[in-house]
């Protein structure tokens, strides 16, 4: 098959090629293994098979989770883990589970459950990125999903503050563990990146780069300098374009800051809101007019009147005849 491999993703920001963990994981793995992957920023999970991005397409193959995609790429001989011993492969499995078990929930928490981050950064970002009708649905649905995740794992009788402390403590321990494991190396298994590096990068990069208003966990990550260097190293080596783009955007935004502050950046999808408000107002006014009788739509009455008119005419005609 000589068809190109395609990947539909969430767009990037803050110097990252994508803001989404799962998209980043696949993109990094593809880069590390040298797979020629074309990425398309769609920012719309609506038409995807599982309602989720990323979506990987190669000919008739449509896949949407990292294990499936990496297995497929490995089958096509794009394998980043080629030089690993079985013991190292076991380590990859173990550390992946460590991230999934201890860091994933904390990331969900930082993104969707922490109110300040959610309202000031995450919801506006997604609302702006998504196309019009979806932007009212998806951010809220992701928030509910994250809260459901938290509810299922923690007893809801506990104080929410305490749950937050636990989630963050787990995550901090996980970050420390990773930092110790990485040590002074460039990558987890020496000088070449593997699938574990892709996974770790995907978990850590958005947490490090996003400008969170409440940065508790982010600060912890920033204090582990080898992991920060690790993220920067991978971004610079494998996604240099996204950094340049972000820098250019930032300097452009810095120049034009005075103009844009109130017109666009304050609220996403101004147009959408205006249309919705207009429709709502029209509907409300019409129903009010109908209800109070200002406006009458009465076909039957008109018919009767017509008939009456007609009868009058007939009578008039009869009168004249007489």
């Amino acid at each position, binding site marked *: 098959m000589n068809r190109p491999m395609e990947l539909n993703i969430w767009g990037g920001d803050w110097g990252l090629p994508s803001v989404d963990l799962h998209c980043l994981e696949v993109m990094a793995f593809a880069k590390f293994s040298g797979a020629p992957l074309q990425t398309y920023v769609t920012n719309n999970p609506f038409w995807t098979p599982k309602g989720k991005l990323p979506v990987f397409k190669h000919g008739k193959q449509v896949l949407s989770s990292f294990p499936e995609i990496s297995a497929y790429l490995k089958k096509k001989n794009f394998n980043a883990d080629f030089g690993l011993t079985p013991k190292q492969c076991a380590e990859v499995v173990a550390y992946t*589970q460590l991230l999934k078990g201890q860091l994933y929930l904390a990331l969900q928490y930082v993104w969707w459950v922490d109110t300040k981050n959610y309202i000031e950064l995450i919801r506006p970002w997604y609302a702006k990125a998504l196309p019009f009708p979806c932007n009212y649905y998806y951010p809220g649905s992701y928030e509910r999903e994250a809260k459901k995740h938290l509810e299922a794992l*923690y007893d809801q009788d506990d104080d929410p503050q305490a749950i937050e402390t636990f989630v963050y403590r787990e995550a901090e321990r996980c970050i420390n563990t990773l930092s110790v*494991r990485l040590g002074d190396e460039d990558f987890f298994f020496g000088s070449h990146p593997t699938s574990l590096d892709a996974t770790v990068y995907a978990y850590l990069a958005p947490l490090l780069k996003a400008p969170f208003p409440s940065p508790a966990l982010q600060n912890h990550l920033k204090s582990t300098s080898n992991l920060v260097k690790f993220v920067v190293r991978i971004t610079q080596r494998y996604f240099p374009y996204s950094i340049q783009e972000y820098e250019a955007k930032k300097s452009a935004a810095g120049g034009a800051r005075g103009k844009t502050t109130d017109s666009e950046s304050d609220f996403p999808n101004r147009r959408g809101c205006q249309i919705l408000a207009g429709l709502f107002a029209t509907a409300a006014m019409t129903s009010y007019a109908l209800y109070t009788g200002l406006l009458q739509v009465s076909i039957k009455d008109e018919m009767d009147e017509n008939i009456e008119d007609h009868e009058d005419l007939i009578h008039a005609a009869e009168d004249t005849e007489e």
Partner: protein
Amino acid sequence: MPSVLLTESLTLELGGTGINDHFSAHEPWPQDVKLYQPYEVEQILLPDNANCLAVQAFLKMCGLDFEVVPRNNAEYMSPSGRVPFIRCGAFVIAELDPIISFVNNKGISLSEKLDNTQKADMRAYMSLVNTVLANAELYVTWCDKTTLQEVTKPRFGSVLPWPLNHIITWQKRGQVVKKLGVLGWGPKTLDEVYQEVENCCNALSERLENQPYFFGNRPTELDALVFGHLFTILTTPLPNNRFASIVRGYPNLIELCKLVEKEYFERRSDP
């Protein structure tokens, strides 16, 4: 339910009063420590049994004395709602992870000889066991229809009177299904679950190689945890024994279970 994700709800309560308390940290291990768990023969289920056994193995490896007290309502007595839990002096601590840190605070640790990278590895493998094996056990116990009808319902309901045995079992099943759902195990089929178990055992077996324990000649917390899970999987009779047969495919893991059983369980019960 031992998942590291779930454990800490207790350390919270103890955080202020117990673990960090200057007093308790230096107190020696008291004589009358009790470990509460459900009845092993009639009641206990596969996931709970694995956790109880892991804690027992850990305490025995540390050389700490304790007495196992079976209670049919152990789950409701536990401060975190999960078994087992230990009563040690004025403190009640549930589940393996908090118990490990409690014991560490008394100056007893199985992993103090390890270097930092080894400790990091140990944490990673422990979370591998906690996420994969523990969730697979929950899945088989509560989501597999045959096991649910033939094993889980009769055992779980055995200690409850008539209408409650159905209601509480149903409630519990709902909780477990919800939890597995958010962790991404909901849509998995039984075959996929067994595949995960296979991968996990493979990783553990590669890590163990031909050593007696995971980190050389001395057991660590990881050995206690792996022993708890694998031994339970091997010895629990289920309608479908594929779970156990997967584990049997890894002779070095079986050797580890036999070794821990011989060293820490038989020797104690003989005299």
